[in-house]
């Protein structure tokens, strides 16, 4: 226990990086996901195909492989990023594929009459999507999007393999230095739970708040 208290600054610094990484990647993921979902329901076939290709490829590749591909593969074509931006791109792009699927299932829950009514008012397809369908769709998937946020928080630890100094990276070093693995890893676990459990509660509250009564 002393090991944790003595090195509290290590945990705090790690947690800060983890939270920053998670929030930035989540913003990227929401952007990517909504655009891809819009592509997948659009009337233009090439956009639909591109959307399907993106989702199926990214979703079926392990996140670890994506990290390796971006961090060790892309420099071969002179595309070089620092570890942290690489992590944001990879985590955001990966989670974006799942956000896209979630949003698409949300779009499917919006009743057909909504889009029909919007169209009969003369709205164009992008307007129908942006003004009428997406706001309703997003409301109905707040819960699942919260689940993805929690999964992303945990997945952000994989950035440790490209030496982003987030929580797992720092605590692993600390565990090796102090040779006190159990308390150190437990401390890290508690730090993660401090993020994941409250965000679960927060998303559930938000879900209830924005729920539609149809």
């Amino acid at each position, binding site marked *: 226990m002393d090991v944790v208290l003595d090195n509290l600054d290590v945990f705090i610094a790690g947690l800060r990086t983890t939270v920053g990484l998670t929030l930035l990647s989540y913003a990227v993921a929401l952007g990517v996901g909504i655009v891809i979902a819009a592509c997948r329901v659009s009337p233009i076939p090439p956009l639909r195909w591109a959307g399907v290709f993106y989702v199926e490829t990214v979703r079926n590749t392990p996140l670890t492989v994506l990290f390796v591909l971006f961090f060790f593969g892309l420099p071969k074509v002179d595309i070089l990023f620092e570890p942290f931006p690489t992590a944001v791109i990879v985590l955001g792009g990966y989670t974006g594929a799942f956000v896209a699927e979630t949003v698409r299932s949300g779009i499917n829950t919006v009743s057909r009459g909504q889009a029909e009514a919007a169209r009969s008012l003369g709205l164009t397809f992008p307007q129908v999507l942006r003004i009428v369908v997406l706001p309703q769709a997003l409301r109905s998937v707040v819960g*699942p999007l919260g689940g993805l946020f929690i999964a992303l928080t945990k997945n952000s630890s994989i950035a440790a393999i490209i030496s982003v100094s987030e929580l797992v990276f720092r605590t692993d070093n600390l565990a*090796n230095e102090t040779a006190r693995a159990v308390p150190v890893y437990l401390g890290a676990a508690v730090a993660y739970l401090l993020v994941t459990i409250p965000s679960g509660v927060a998303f559930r509250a938000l879900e209830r708040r924005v729920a539609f009564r149809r």
Partner: protein
Amino acid sequence: MTAPVLADALGPRARRKVLIASVVTGAALAALLGVAVQRLVDKGQLEWARWEPLTQWSVLKFLLGGLGDTLRAAFAGMTLALLIGAALALLRLAQTAVVRWLATAWTEFFRGVPLLLLIFFSYSGLRQYGIDISPFRALVLALALYNGAMLGEIFRAGILSLDRGQTEAAYAIGLSYWQAMLQVVIPQAARRMTPAIVSQLITLLKDTSLGFVITYEELLRRSRSTGEFFRNPLQVTVFVAVLYIAVNFTLSRIARRLEVRQRRRLGAGAIATTTGVEDLAVVSVSAAAAVRDDH
């Protein structure tokens, strides 16, 4: 399925507009692809010499051996995780409050921490305390603990999603708690849960790639050493990514088939409507979505 719900059957003018937009976006996507290919050519990444090692049988055998070890760890992890998940679900629905709390605490703990942390813990952590655990066992242990908690949640959701009348009817005809569970509740719940379970298992399969951090000789680790040896990390990683995609895509297709067939036969709404869920995330939309989403 492909016909979007958001557009009516198109008239002549709209069809012309869609055609023009298709040509434009198609050209833009093709141009993007062209830029990427040009870049690869410029940096010599498409030269045959860099891909040639992947046609040598010895290299392929090495990599496929890694895939074998990936599948071995995944299979062992899946078996244990399913057992742990079933136990947790039953304990969380137990009649004794203390048992319920303990099972809930266990689930929340292992569901809330990153898998990578569990992997480090079960390998280097246990080693520090003199337990000489092999990388394979450490990986399987971590996968089982993490996914067991995840599956426990799915099982519980499946059991709770069942109409209460089912249990009540079972008790009414004189079945005991365990008889009702085993003969009435679990068979129906299992059917509804299949898609969610399969997607969790696919996540587990993908997560075995984390074994490379604790020197487990699975596909990703072998691809790294191959890439270093032939100095073609980009090519080998792409090849390995394609292998993973092929395996996972096949699995999710099979799962989807099963789901469609079952729904046709039983007319029961499945819990999850999408395949390959990252987390429990998509599970809860389903109830509403399953009704409207007729694929």
